[in-house]
């Protein structure tokens, strides 16, 4: 409904270009990167992430999987990228990549695999992280996103303990934010949630962010992805 003129399209174009460009110390493209559906398969990959990857023996979301591919194929230092502030250097490229990759699954429905024991374990850990109260204000994710039809000030809050609907909550990120002109991936969205939750700083692609992605993604089963969405 907001697709017309979404500036996220500029990021999508840049992301596709980055995927196909020879970059990094190894001067290689990402075209053989396996996002879960086989090497180079981009369409439909986003709506099945996070998922288990045998080569890394980890459950990974889109962004942590891209770190793996950027390191393995292109020779980038994944740790250095993870430690780069959002919007700077390779993190700016990361935003563009997630914009394009998510756009390739636009209109598809979330269907995260849960067959692997580690995927199931991540769901259980993500659920517990979601309800984990702490910080100066005793907030958890559930303080804001545990019930339906609630809002903060005028901002509607999706209930992320279930499927809040097509293009809502988990199904609306990555997104272009009009308020600051930035393209935010799920990692940055979670980072800002934890900031407002008055928690300490979550590492990029840290275990808690992956587990929360599995919890929200599995709950969103059947929801249509509108990413990259347009947000105020």
């Amino acid at each position: 409904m907001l697709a017309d003129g979404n500036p996220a399209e500029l990021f999508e174009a840049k992301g596709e270009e980055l995927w196909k460009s020879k970059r990094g110390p190894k001067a290689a493209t990402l075209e053989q990167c396996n996002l879960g559906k086989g090497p180079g398969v981009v369409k439909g990959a986003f709506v099945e992430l996070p998922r288990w990857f045998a080569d890394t023996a980890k459950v990974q979301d889109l962004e942590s999987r891209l770190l793996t591919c950027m390191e393995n194929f292109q020779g980038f230092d994944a740790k250095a990228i993870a430690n780069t502030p959002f919007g700077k250097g390779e993190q700016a490229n990361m935003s563009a990549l997630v914009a394009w990759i998510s756009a390739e699954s636009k209109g598809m429905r979330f269907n995260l695999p849960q067959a692997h024991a580690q995927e199931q374990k991540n769901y259980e850990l993500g659920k517990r992280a979601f309800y984990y109260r702490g910080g100066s204000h005793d907030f958890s994710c559930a303080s804001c996103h545990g019930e339906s039809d609630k809002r903060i000030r005028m901002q509607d809050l999706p209930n992320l303990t279930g499927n809040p609907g097509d293009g809502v909550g988990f199904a609306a990120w990555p997104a272009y934010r009009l308020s600051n002109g930035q393209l935010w991936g799920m990692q940055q969205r979670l980072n800002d949630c934890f900031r407002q939750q008055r928690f300490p700083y979550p590492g990029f692609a840290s275990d808690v962010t992956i587990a929360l992605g599995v919890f929200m993604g599995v709950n969103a089963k059947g929801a249509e992805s509108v990413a990259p969405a347009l947000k105020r």
Partner: protein
Amino acid sequence: MKSKTFVWGAAAIVLAGCASVAPAPDYGAMVSEMMRNSFRDEGIAKTDRLVQDPANAACSQAMGADLPADVASSIEKDAMKTVRFPADGKFIGDWREGEKLAQNGRGMTWTDKSTATSANGGNCLNCHQVTKEEISFGTIGPSLYQFGKNRGVTDVQSAEARPIVEYTWGKIYNPRATNACSNMPRFGHAGLLDETQMKDLMALLLDPKSPVNQ
């Protein structure tokens, strides 16, 4: 790779066969480990904020369900003991200052500079309706419009108003005194607001002249 997957599958079937005697996974320990290795200090927001007191631990582990009555009552009793009334015995400040605090949602994030109470707002409107005029209010908490009026407070200094005054102070100071897993921050107990600020919020809620009670 394929044979490995097969072995895994076979092992899973064997495990499933004796699932009734296998111990449940210790998610509590795994969650603690995950939280420890996922966060770092940033500005005023240090990793010690992840340490849970017994109340936060119990409310987290319930994962949205009600606590057993005895656990809830024990948390409430412990919380009640933490509530300290104002040192000078005066509960009511200036509702004008209280309204500013209610509007102010700032404080204690890693982008805030100071943990001093003077740097913190009350965050009230994020979750509560407070006045009729302000329409930008959250709905996580109940409406506080006409809070004092609905409770029959006509003179905040009167003996009749005293129980409501003490109850309201307790709600702001440590809401767990009356609701074990309340979503509300413990403004006094956690040192988020000082006595003067809490008195101003008290005035906003209870003073008959406050816009809350119009």
